[in-house]
Structure formats: C-alpha cells, structure tokens
C-alpha cells in the first residue's frame, strides 16, 4: 500500500510517501511561504525519492484543517483532484489530531492548538489511551482564556502542542500553573509521515463531498444570519 500524505493547513508544508506502513520519504518546509508554489514540487520530490509513479499510489491522505483557509484549500484541491483522477481512496484527518500524534504519553491530556488571532485559538482535547490518540473534546474555535478555564476543571496535566506557543505561553502558565506541560520544540511541528501512517486505519471519504474543516463560518454569513435573526 503506497500512501501520499499532504499537509498545507498551517505554516508548515509537509508531504510524505509511505509504503506498507513504513515512512519512505518525508519533506517539510517551515517557512512563511505560499504553499501553492511549494506543494507540487515537494510532491514530485518525495515521489521521485521513493521511485513511486502516480499510478502506483493506493491512497491519498490530507490534513483537512482547521488552519489557514487558503492553505487548507490548496491541500484539499490537490488531494481531491489527484484521488479522483487516479480513482483511489482519500482520507482526511484533523490537523489538530495530526499534531496530537506527537505526544504519545499516557495519563495526560493533550491540547494541540493553532493561533486564530484576537485571543482565539483552534484547539481540541485529545488523550493517549492504550497507545492510541483519542478525541476527548471536538476541535473548536474558542477564546484561549476560556479554553484554559475548561482545562483547569480536569485537574490533570495538559501537554500543549503548537507552533504558536510563544504567543500564549504566559497565559497558559498563569491559568494552569504546574499542570501545563511544554514539550521540546520539535514536537510542535506536525509530521506528514505520521499523516501517511494514520491514513490506513481511517474511514475513506467520498471525494466529491469532502470539504475542509474551517470550523468558522464566513464573516459575511455570520452578519447575514444575525440580520435575519433581528428581522425575525
């Protein structure tokens, strides 16, 4: 089974090829660059390194967000079209869950997050049970301080994973004190190889119906809905 994995949902650009459950090539670039420019050359690179022809691919795995709207769409447009035209299954995995995979530690809570500006974050709560990462609270868009207050109620250590950790480190420490755990820097970067490995165990998506998980509505829609409400 040859899997191509694609993650362009946040700052990191990641692609990987796995063969029969083994990561064969993994490429990441953690630059603030346009993923539209970098993605296909990166795919071409890992495909060449692993001597994989596109018609030898058996599955495509893609990170479906949350994250940058544009970034997620670049990944999904590419992944959907490739899966459709090669007639192979596509698997879409939460970008937060992918990041949570970096913390295979028992008996703690795992809170991966992406900064969403104005004090908000995209986050979810995960835990590692019998070596498997499981969802404890669904991915959501929430004010960080409110999220921390929720986490406090568990009275359990929480491991935070995020490239944006410096933006929120202070408030995390302030609210959670010694319950807050920060791993080493490398664990804050999602691994495309991990995405490829996870894919086989996941449900296949209907390629036509697959959409990014933006979590947030478009601002114009929110306004419109509010007006509808006002006008009864």
């Amino acid at each position, binding site marked *: 089974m040859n899997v191509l994995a694609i993650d362009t949902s946040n700052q990191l650009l990641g692609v990987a090829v796995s063969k029969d459950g083994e990561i064969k090539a993994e490429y990441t670039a953690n630059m603030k660059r346009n993923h*539209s*420019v970098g993605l296909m050359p990166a795919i071409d690179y890992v495909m060449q390194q692993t001597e994989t022809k596109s018609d030898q691919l058996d599955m495509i795995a893609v990170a479906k967000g949350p994250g940058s709207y544009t970034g997620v769409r*670049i990944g999904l447009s590419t992944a*959907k*079209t490739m899966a459709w035209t090669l007639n192979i299954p596509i698997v879409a995995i939460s970008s937060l869950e992918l990041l949570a995979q970096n913390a295979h530690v028992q008996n703690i809570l795992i809170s991966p997050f992406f900064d969403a500006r104005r004090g908000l974050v995209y986050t979810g709560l995960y835990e590692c049970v019998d070596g498997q990462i499981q969802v404890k609270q669904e991915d959501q868009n929430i004010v960080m301080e409110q999220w921390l207050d929720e986490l406090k109620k568990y009275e359990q250590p929480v491991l935070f994973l995020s490239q944006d950790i410096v933006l929120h480190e202070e408030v995390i420490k302030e609210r959670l004190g010694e319950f807050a755990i920060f791993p080493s820097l490398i664990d804050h970067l999602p691994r495309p190889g991990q995405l490829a490995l996870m894919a086989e165990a996941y449900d296949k998506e209907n390629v036509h119906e697959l959409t990014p998980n933006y979590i947030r509505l478009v601002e114009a829609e929110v306004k419109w809905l509010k007006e509808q409400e006002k006008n009864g």
Partner: protein
Amino acid sequence: MSEYILGIETSCDETAAAIIKDGREIVANVVASQIESHKRFGGVVPEIASRHHVEQITIVLEETFKQANVTMTDIDAVTVTEGPGLVGALLVGVNAAKGLAYAHQKPLVGVHHIAGHIYANRLEKEFEFPLLALVVSGGHTELILMKDHGEFEIIGETRDDAAGEAYDKVARTLELPYPGGPKIDQLAHAGEANIDFPRAWLEEDSFDFSFSGLKSAVINTLHNAKQKGETFKQEDVAASFQASVVEVLTEKTFQAAKQYGVKQVIVAGGVAANKGLRTAMQDKFQQEKEMELLFPPLSLCTDNAAMIAAAGSIAYNQGHRSGWDLNANPSLSLERYARRSALER
C-alpha cells in the same frame, strides 16, 4: 490525431471545466454557477466563492469527462486560469489543474483570463489578424490589439471603474437585485434616454475609458431629484445611463478599429451579452465591409472554461509550459503574460 485540451476556470464565482478538440471545437463545457449563494450578500464574497470552488471542483471535472466521453489519457494539455481574479478562488483551479497534470504527467499551461474571453470567439470563427478586441466585464474594460496569436497589446483601458462595475453600482442605487447589470439592460429597453448623463471621451486620440464620473452623475441626479421630491422612471435612468456607456464604448472601439486597420472586431466579456451594446455596435459597424464584427454566443460571454482551453490550446502549441510551482496571480497583466509566452517560445 486530434488534439484534446482540458480547461479549468475558477477566477471568480463560476467553477468551470471544459474539453475542446483541435483548438476550436467544444466537446464538453460545464459551468457550476454560484450566483444564488452570493445574491443575498449583494455581490461576490471572495471567501464564500473559494469555499464553493473546493466543493464543486471534482464534481464539475467528472461531469466534463462524462460529457466528453474521453479520459485523461486522451488529453494533450491541462490549461488553467492563473489570473487575474480572486486569489483564493484562482488557487483552487490552479491546484486542481496541477493535481491532474501531475497525476498523468501531462503538460500544464497557465492562461490569462482575458486572453480566454477573447479566444471564446475563436470557438465560433477563425481569427484574422490584425484584430481588435473590446473586453468588457465586471472587472475589465480594455481595447486589445492582436497582430498574431498569443500577442496582446493593450491600446486602451479604464482609468477607474470597469464598465460592468459601473453597471453594478448604478443597479445598486436603483435598488435592483444582484446581479444588476443584465437587469439595467432589460429596463433600458423599456425606457427612454431622456436624461443627459456625461460621456467621458478623455483626451482626443486616447482609447482609454473612465466610468466613475458617469456613475457619480447618475447617483447625484437621483439624489437631487429625491430631495426635490421629483422622481425619474427607473427605465429612463437605465436607458440614459446605458446610452452613455454604450456610446463611449462603441465610438472608441470604432475609432481604434479604423486607426489600426483591423480585419476583425471582437466584443468579449460578460458585458458583451448586453443587448444595448450589441445593437449599437452592429449599427456602427454596418457600413464597414472590410471589417467583421464578432460577438461570442451568449453562453460563452460569461466566465467558462472552454474559452480558457481555447486560449490554452494556442499557448500550448506555441510552446508555453508552466512548472509545478505555478501560482495564482490575482493581478496578472496581459502584456506581461504575452511577453512571457513569447520568451518561452
């Protein structure tokens, strides 16, 4: 053997794919319009457009291949609008095109959206050079001289609003539902051009356009009338506004066509569907036996991918190739695009 070109277009609010044969014959042409979802906002919301594109893209592609009854193996090149347009919207098409081209190791060709609008006409009739194209849409008002395939020289363009933009703004002032342009055209036919709105001729011998003054004049006239408790018939306002736009477009196009001694005059873009413009142009060019006036069929005036494939076929045959690093370029200039193609040849 026949040449099959796949075209993809997602620059604004239509998700479109098409396959054309030998550069000029439409085999399949599929357009998924989003007008309904933008209506309630009174205009295109870029983020919503982008979201729709990613939902529609494989569905539209599947329908296209089904209609054409060919497979990717038969396709000679994948062509896609790389700009200008809404960046988030363009990105979906560009990345889908790359996915397809890469998966089947086919040539990838980026296409300029306006080149597409002009080449929509070639699906009906072979070009004869030199030709002059008037491109009028919500985003563009340009006079383009072509001496050969793939050569685009802008000899006139709008200095402020595009003609279609002026239509939309006046429509909003008249409180017409979105999209307002076609609605004004409709009303104009029932009205009389009895209000004297300005015509912006600019400098003598300039082929540039300006529509913001006209737009303001319409808005001010309506505003003043309202304060005095007078009313204008909506139909008359529409007719008077349209008369001004159409006269300037027609006159400038005619002068430019004469000056450059062109064999064909092509009207392209969304506003080319405007009946007032079509009639005025036909009247103006009626006497010109050595000049042929061409309008694309209505279905090819608005955004579609057959026109992108038509322009893409020429670019492909002229040796233009895009790399795997092809990006969306929301402000891609036509002349830069033409020069780049020439360099790669």
